[in-house]
């Protein structure tokens, strides 16, 4: 394939899923206007959710989901060996995502609650990077397809990709949304990394930080504001821990 007279290699791409809802892979089949163009940029060799063709010779592997069982640890290690580039796709792979909420409960109790006396293999939820080296992370619950396409084009052309440094709050203001903090809701848009175009506050659903912290943020100030608005630490923590993406920023404070 040539682009502006420059020959571009089509990388062999694979997608693998672990503990998750598979909604991030689904985003790739969405945004139908550009799907055929996107498919023309890469050679998809493994994408179980939509294809029964399988090949373990790939350059880039995208992994979706958290790791929560021994066979998944073995599987992700094999994928790591095969892939030149291993990329976490979506919040579950990046941090364990909402699956991590189970880590505050005792594993045995959880198994008993759901399965009674039956034996079920499971481990506390981990992110992919806690098991193997990850080369790049694409956050989002779900991922933003436009950002994904942008990253793929950067990868193929060898250009450096950088995430937006400012928070979701900026995109939300640009969309002229009414501020949810002003409606007395806990919104983490002021500290969360932009790039999603603020779909949650756009629907009047507060941001709970699925994309992780923005490079430039002021958590102590937001926390202080929320406390002044009358929220308890427990209420704030329920939101900051929902996607397990803001722990680094918020844990030593509360």
């Amino acid at each position: 394939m040539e682009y502006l007279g420059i020959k571009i290699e089509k990388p062999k791409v694979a997608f693998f899923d672990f503990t998750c809802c598979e909604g991030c892979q689904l985003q790739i089949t969405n945004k139908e206007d550009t799907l055929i163009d996107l498919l023309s940029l890469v050679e998809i060799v493994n994408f179980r959710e939509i294809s029964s063709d399988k090949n373990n010779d790939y350059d880039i592997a995208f992994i979706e989901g958290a790791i929560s069982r021994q066979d998944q640890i073995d599987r992700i290690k094999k994928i790591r060996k095969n892939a030149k580039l291993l990329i976490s796709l979506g919040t579950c792979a990046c941090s364990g995502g909402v699956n991590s909420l189970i880590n505050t409960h005792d594993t045995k109790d959880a198994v008993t609650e759901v399965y009674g006396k039956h034996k079920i293999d499971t481990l506390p939820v981990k992110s992919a990077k806690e098991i193997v080296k990850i080369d790049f992370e694409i956050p989002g619950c779900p991922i933003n397809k436009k950002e994904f396409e942008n990253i793929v084009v950067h990868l193929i052309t060898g250009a450096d990709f950088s995430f937006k440094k400012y928070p979701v709050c900026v995109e939300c203001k640009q969309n002229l949304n009414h501020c949810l903090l002003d409606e007395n809701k806990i919104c983490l848009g002021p500290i969360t990394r932009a790039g999603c175009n603020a779909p949650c506050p756009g629907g009047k659903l507060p941001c709970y930080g699925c994309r992780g912290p923005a490079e430039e943020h002021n958590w102590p100030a937001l926390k202080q504001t929320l406390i002044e608005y009358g929220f308890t630490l427990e209420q704030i923590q329920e939101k900051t821990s929902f996607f397990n993406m803001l722990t680094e920023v918020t844990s030593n404070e509360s």
Partner: protein
Amino acid sequence: MKVNMNINVHHIARTEGHGNIHIKVKDGKLVESQWEVVETPRFFEVMLKGMSYEMAHLLTARICGICSIGHALASLRATENAFGIDLPETAKKLRLLAKHGETLQSHFLHLFFLAAPDFFNVGSVIPLVSSNRDIVEIALRLKKCANDMCDILAGRTTHPTSFCVGGMSKAPKKKDLEKIKTALSDRIFDAQKTVALFKTLTMPEFERQTEFVSLKGEKSYPWIGGSLISTDGIIKDETDYLAMTNEYIVDFSTSKFAKLSRESIAVGALARINNNYEFLNPPAKQIAQEFNLKPVNHNPYMNHIARLVECVHTINESIQMIDELLDMSLDTICAQYTVKSGQGISAVEVPRGILYHHYVINDSGKIEKANCIIPTTQNHANIHHDMAELVKQEVKKGKTDTQITKLAEMLVRSYDPCISCSVH
């Protein structure tokens, strides 16, 4: 000739989630047939314990990437039933319209991306981009229309952002509703082409007497709430969902199995049509007749046709609902309510069948106990038993192991299982 087969499909493709097929035939006799669900459990019911009621629909939407709108709606309705909230008519219509968007998105994704490759003898939709470009373009137009509909009604298709306890947090603009109406009307032509395409595909001939469970229509095709009905004549209130599902655990599946009057039940598009055929709108009924789909149809592969019929029904119903919404004021879209202790049960028909959410909430609005019963959970036992019967019938017909592998995979896909959902 003595027929021996040893079929093992690890992580079957073109399904959501992880499942394996094991079939053993010795001297022409079925020795083993197993639908093994190996998905990792996520313990959503345990995660919900202690969570604030207003977070429950956000968490449970994440049970499924494909039917997150359905999960969010079942979850919200369970909470609303616990608090005794009566939704404004506008919110009821907007929510159902959002769910129709999801049904169309899910059904078209399945028909074209997951099911169709089997009939074209290719591994995925990707080779069809060059060999059958026109079909792929129809698929993309239909899928885009459905996703746009979800974006406008629910904020987005996967993990919706415009719902809240009491109704909707945001109403669509009327000019956007008009846009959807135009887009849907424009896509009727593509839906007709899809019907024509499916007429050229042969559904495998296979029957196994099955008990089909769905919501029971009273005056219209049922989607949200109401009584439960089975084709074996059982009718129960939705609050009696446990008696309609009877979940049990088998050692080869991380998902539970379910049953009612027989060893298994089936839910989904075919079950809905088998129980509510009379409520299909005339264009949809016409398509059903053209495919000779009438109740009670016991061929699981006819689920594909049932999905297609539902797409036609849903497109027509959506256009009608948009007309009604355009005549209404969308100023009030959310009911006032008081948080109080109680329990709520909700049954919602989502693309793969009937979905139940049940919460017990305390007086500070925290969830004390939760139970979610997923459509695919209810279908697993039926897939498992269908597979054994399929192998027996096909071995008798002299089919090879390659042919039987394909038919078994197609059987699993005919249920469009959402496996991670079923284990949750």
